[in-house]
């Protein structure tokens, strides 16, 4: 009864995936983790220290939007400008076409050897294979690419292709390749390895017939290429051999030189955390530099230089026509999205599947260039945490692109696959053939609703041995994880019986009964009610559906849209009465404030966006506007219900914010409030707990989720005697599981006693 795919049952497939991810974590994880976390922290600092970051991100975005819009005109212009400079432009429709053009140039120049500087576009085209098969020698000159070429591996990162290799592994590779033994053998000193590789590569550059570079940008008006490097290899590759071939995707075109300014100031800050890289060449070939012939010791005149610009379509024009994938073409390939991704930090690019591009925006590139199927594994590793969004120098909504690709994959699934058990329970808008695991989590609200009619029976069934076995077999839920237990009484049942308890309120407030608070953890909802009432708010908890976050995270876009519309309908009369909407779960608030922009008509989105608040953001606002924090439970005051229940009186709190809460810029309200309440608050530098909603429950990803969570626990260190609190449901679950204790929501710490 399981879906038969790739010759195994779905359980076997999930287990095989889990084993593959574990093995990649073991081999690549340590080096990748060190490099990406460092780059990510340096980049955060560089963005923060630079006054113009946001202004230039806006300008960069506009330039790319306009350039893609005007692409046909820019393509005409670049052909004229390069030709008037004395070079040749070739338009290649496909990888095959590009490779044919390049081989023809090699043949015409009677060339034997080509040196290359790093270019992901040439990886996409598999230029090396094409040239080597035709009998040419190809040498990579970027040291990371050089390592990858010797090891015959694929790049693991957009800008650090050998990032998964430790110095020791590189030393072994060089020693094996060049037969270095005894005193000649290289140590794992990065200085020694760099010096060795520089010599090897340097010889080849001096002898090469052709130098091939990519281009970070191509200026249509002048025929200028922008090349961003640190090593200097691209400079040498471009000017040393007599012939220069530049290969670039057509999306690299911008109108004029001055358009490069925002990108010049952003690209290194985003990618590596440098203010600028060592070299940024604005190169207008063929250049005037005389051609050095090292063998004959002569300088040939620059008039002998040849320049060819190969502009590659290979799916890009179709991406331009694709409303959802078009944004991918704005990507300037800095790698910041990968560096900020907790799963990428743990695994590196090799885990993300795909033929060329990995991680983050790689999903959009793979889907556009190599077809939706080649992005299948990537989309699932994106948890939609959104930490890449504030890092992208051109403001691409990378989680959305991952969601869209996941949705397309869902719809392309096998229509005959197993749907029986959940079909009756799942009123979703999706086509048949959806993976049952995705359908389970995407329809979690309905399942919770049905289960809550008899919570004890449901809980007993789920936590029993046969129940767990069934969950793992049918839906791919990891058998080490326990699904959260349904509460005896939902938040709305409790509140319905109790009613509002503020006689002369200053304000009327709607508390959004998110799925988790309603069915699984009403305690944090009760605490929110107590806090709001203590600050003179009359609370309303109307029936409002799940926000659509659950189906969206499974790539079920149409179901999410239906949910969004229902949420809006349920709240609109509340908004009409002038009531603010307060949300406990940050991932639901992020739906209201971000994703609904794509799911609802603009006025509906704006209405909800402008009137919804994260619970402690709202409490902070109340305290700033006349209410007193002393009405709440403070460190010196009476114990909150959660402190009484846990028998813990503490003044120190380890607080973990939620990824989407950080992206919305709302973390500081909680830390400030807790400080104002007299607590000493610690936060971790690790941003993601690794749980990410359903991700950590899935059989194939539970191991990665645990590893990401352990990074956070390591960073927090000893928490004995402290209260660990977290804002997100998943974060509370994950930390509770890692520390084996209850991890409440911070609002519970502020709740005055005796409210219920």
């Amino acid at each position, binding site marked *: 009864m399981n879906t038969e795919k790739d010759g195994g049952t779905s359980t076997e497939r999930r287990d095989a995936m889990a084993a593959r991810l574990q093995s990649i974590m073991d081999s690549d994880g340590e080096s990748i983790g060190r490099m990406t976390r460092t780059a990510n922290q340096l980049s955060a600092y560089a963005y923060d220290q630079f006054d113009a970051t946001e202004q230039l991100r806006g300008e960069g975005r506009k330039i790319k939007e306009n350039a893609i819009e005007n692409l046909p005109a820019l393509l005409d212009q670049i052909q004229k400008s390069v030709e008037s400079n004395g070079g040749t432009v070739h338009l290649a429709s496909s990888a095959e076409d590009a490779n044919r053009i390049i081989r023809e140039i090699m043949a015409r120049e009677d060339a034997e050897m080509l040196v290359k500087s790093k270019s992901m576009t040439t990886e996409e085209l598999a230029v090396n294979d094409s040239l080597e098969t035709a009998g040419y020698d190809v040498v990579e000159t970027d040291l990371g690419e050089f390592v990858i070429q010797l090891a015959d591996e694929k790049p693991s990162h957009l800008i650090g292709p050998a990032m998964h290799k430790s*110095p020791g592994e590189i030393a072994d590779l060089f020693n094996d390749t060049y037969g270095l033994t005894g005193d000649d053998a290289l140590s794992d000193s990065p200085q020694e390895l760099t010096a060795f590789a520089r010599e090897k590569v340097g010889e080849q*550059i001096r002898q090469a017939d052709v130098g091939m570079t990519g281009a970070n940008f191509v200026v249509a008006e*002048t025929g200028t290429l922008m090349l961003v490097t640190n090593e200097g290899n691209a400079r040498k590759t471009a000017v040393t051999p007599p012939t220069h071939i530049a290969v670039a995707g057509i999306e690299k075109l911008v109108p004029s030189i001055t358009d490069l300014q925002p990108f010049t100031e952003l690209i290194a800050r985003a990618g590596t955390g440098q203010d600028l890289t060592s070299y940024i060449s604005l190169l*207008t070939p063929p250049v005037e530099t*005389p051609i050095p012939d090292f063998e004959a010791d002569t300088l040939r005149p620059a008039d002998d230089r040849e320049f060819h610009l190969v502009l590659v379509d290979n799916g890009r024009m179709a991406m331009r026509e694709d409303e959802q994938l078009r944004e991918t073409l704005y990507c300037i390939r800095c790698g910041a999205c990968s560096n900020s991704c907790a799963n990428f930090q743990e695994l590196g690019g090799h885990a993300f599947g795909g033929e060329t591009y990995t991680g983050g925006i790689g999903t959009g590139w793979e889907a556009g260039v190599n077809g939706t199927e080649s992005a299948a594994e990537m989309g699932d590793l994106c948890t939609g945490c959104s930490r890449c969004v504030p890092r992208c120098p051109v403001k691409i909504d990378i989680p959305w692109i991952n969601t869209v690709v996941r949705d397309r994959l869902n719809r392309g699934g096998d229509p005959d696959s197993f749907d029986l058990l959940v079909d009756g329970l799942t009123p979703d808008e999706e086509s048949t053939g959806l993976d049952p695991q995705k359908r389970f989590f995407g329809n979690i609200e309905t399942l919770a609703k049905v289960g809550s009619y008899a919570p004890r029976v449901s809980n007993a069934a789920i936590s029993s041995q046969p129940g767990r076995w069934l969950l793992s077999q049918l839906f791919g839920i990891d058998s080490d994880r326990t699904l959260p237990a349904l509460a005896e009484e939902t938040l709305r049942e409790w509140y319905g019986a109790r009613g509002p308890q503020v006689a002369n309120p200053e304000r009327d407030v709607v508390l959004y009964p998110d799925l988790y608070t309603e069915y699984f953890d009403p305690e944090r909802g009760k605490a929110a009610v107590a806090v709001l009432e203590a600050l003179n708010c009359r609370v309303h908890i109307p029936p409002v559906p799940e926000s659509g976050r659950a189906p969206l995270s499974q790539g079920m876009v149409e179901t999410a849209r239906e949910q969004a519309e229902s949420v809006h309908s349920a709240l609109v009369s509340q908004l009409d009465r002038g009531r603010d909407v307060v949300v406990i779960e940050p991932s639901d608030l992020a739906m209201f404030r971000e994703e609904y922009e794509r799911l609802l008509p603009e006025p509906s989105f704006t209405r909800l966006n402008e009137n919804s608040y994260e619970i402690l953001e709202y409490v902070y606002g109340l305290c700033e506007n006349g209410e007193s924090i002393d009405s709440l439970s403070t460190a010196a005051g009476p114990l909150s219900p959660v402190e009484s229940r846990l028998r813990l009186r503490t003044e120190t709190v380890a607080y973990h914010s939620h990824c989407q809460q950080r992206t919305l810029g709302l973390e500081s309200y909680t830390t400030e409030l807790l400080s104002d309440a007299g607590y000493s608050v610690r936060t971790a530098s690790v941003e993601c707990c690794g749980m990410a909603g359903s991700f950590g429950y899935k059989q194939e990803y539970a191991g990665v989720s645990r590893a990401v969570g352990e990074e956070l626990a390591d960073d927090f260190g000893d928490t004995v005697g402290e209260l660990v609190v977290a804002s997100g449901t998943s974060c509370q679950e994950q930390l509770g599981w890692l520390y084996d204790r209850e991890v409440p929501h911070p609002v519970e710490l502020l709740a005055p006693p005796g409210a219920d």
Partner: protein
Amino acid sequence: MTTERVDSFISAVGATATVHTSTVEQFTETVTDVVTEPAIGTAIGLEGVSLDNTPVETDLTPVALEQAQTGVTPATYAIADYGTITVPTDDEGTELVSLYTPQHVAVLAASQLVPNMEAAYERFGAGFAENSETDGAQPQTQVFATGPSATADMGTLVQGVHGPHEVHIILVEDR
């Protein structure tokens, strides 16, 4: 040129390079002190400034380039905010000399120091556009160079890869 701008340039350069300020008269002495022999150079193009009477050879050949310890070249602009210089490309081989030698010494008039990237691009924009229309005298190619070449591909930051590992900048007071 303001002294504040020079100060902020020097502070932005930090440890990535060494900045020397020099009068036209002192130039011969300054450059002689800085270079490591054998040294090779291309014409600086500033009034009253020449590599004659210095240890710097100006007869560029590939072998001389490979053997040189120091390359002396002109720079077009310096950018105060970033501690960056821009190196032009010309038919004398300035690009090669600034790139192949382990020590690069860049020379420019202090009046060519611009405050920020926007100002640098304004000047470039005019120059590049003019050039594409009229084949004018503005350099067609500029390399923003900030400090020595570097890589992190071998596991940690290493300075001095394909390009120079040491950079000196001589600002010549011209007004």
